[in-house]
């Protein structure tokens, strides 16, 4: 994509984001007055207190106030939920715009067993250019051992062949410092490309094994 096209694309993306914000604001403002009617509705049942004239007035005055607070609380909770939903939608939209499927490459790290390797860091180079370098804390490494998957890189790469080199550092068997690499030449097509860096145990050799899996 030449620079002019890219600029047009960015302008279009910005316009789309602005539209999304405007739509969300309109939706919020359109929804906002509706619950405000509710307190009025809840106050109207108070007059039936006439059936019990001595005790009802005091209780009737408290009841609407309580229901008002409840309604307000519900509105606040609803508004919070709307904000969270909107944030989620914007996040997804932003990712789709910043990393369109035709150039998107995502790299994930997963770990299985981990008896022979304690992960410390992973460095990723694509076409000999460092694109990610991540230090794992003990909690993050534990999360990987429990089945978690970490997205270490999300970026844009042109369609065509690319070489990915991943360097893993950590402690190997017998607490030795360990540094190993894994390489994969992948073909970036028109769709999004997902690659997984897998750390597994090679039980017969009592060594960890590092591989890169291309999710077609």
């Amino acid at each position, binding site marked *: 994509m030449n620079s002019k096209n890219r600029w047009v694309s960015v302008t279009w993306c910005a316009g789309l984001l602005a539209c999304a914000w405007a739509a969300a604001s309109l939706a919020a403002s359109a929804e906002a007055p509706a619950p405000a009617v509710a307190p009025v509705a809840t106050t109207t049942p108070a007059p039936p207190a006439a059936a019990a004239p001595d005790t009802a007035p005091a209780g009737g005055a408290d009841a609407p106030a309580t229901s008002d607070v409840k309604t307000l609380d519900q509105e606040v909770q609803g508004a919070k939920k709307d904000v969270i939903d909107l944030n989620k939608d914007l996040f997804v939209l932003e990712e789709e715009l910043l990393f369109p499927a035709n150039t998107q490459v995502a790299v994930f790290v997963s770990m299985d067993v981990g008896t022979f390797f304690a992960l*410390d*860091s992973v460095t990723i180079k694509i076409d000999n250019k460092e694109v990610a370098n991540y*230090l*794992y*804390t*003990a909690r*993050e490494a534990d999360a990987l051992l429990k089945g978690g998957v970490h997205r270490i890189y999300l970026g844009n790469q042109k369609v065509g062949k690319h070489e990915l080199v991943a360097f893993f550092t950590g402690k190997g068997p017998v607490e030795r410092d360990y540094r190993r690499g894994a390489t994969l030449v992948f073909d970036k097509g028109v769709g999004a490309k997902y690659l997984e860096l897998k750390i597994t145990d090679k039980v017969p050799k009592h060594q960890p094994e590092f591989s890169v899996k291309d999710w077609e």
Partner: protein
Amino acid sequence: MLASTATLAAVPTLIDKDAPDFVLKGLDGRNLRLSEFRGQVVLVNFWARWAGDSRKEMPALDRINKTYARAGLVVLGVSVDDDERRAGEFADSMRLSYPILFDTGETVGRDYAVQKMPMTILVDRAGVVRYQNVGFKRGDEDAYLDHIRELLRE
């Protein structure tokens, strides 16, 4: 309300802003991430071996850590020395009870706009910078204690 006591007016302040997250390798080989201490009060001390004030401040921070660690305070020392090995030897000789991390890439120092050594910041339980002190002079540790107690009570 906690007030800023930055000693240099020109130093950019981070007070009331989210503390920039970082992950750094420690002297003991472990990696520590600031955001993993969310829910605790964190004191981050940027220091350098060549800064005389750092040498004076570290024993005071060690005493604070020993006293308040059980109350939920975390003290992190971040070395901005270029020479990690010599910084490590220096920290070892100080026999500190709190973890020492190495910012050899100086990325964290840049995020926190560290311009003078030492620099100490206090991060509250929500991850917001609430206090910042640049340099160190006798009596500063008392100000640290006042702020720490207040943040621990929140």
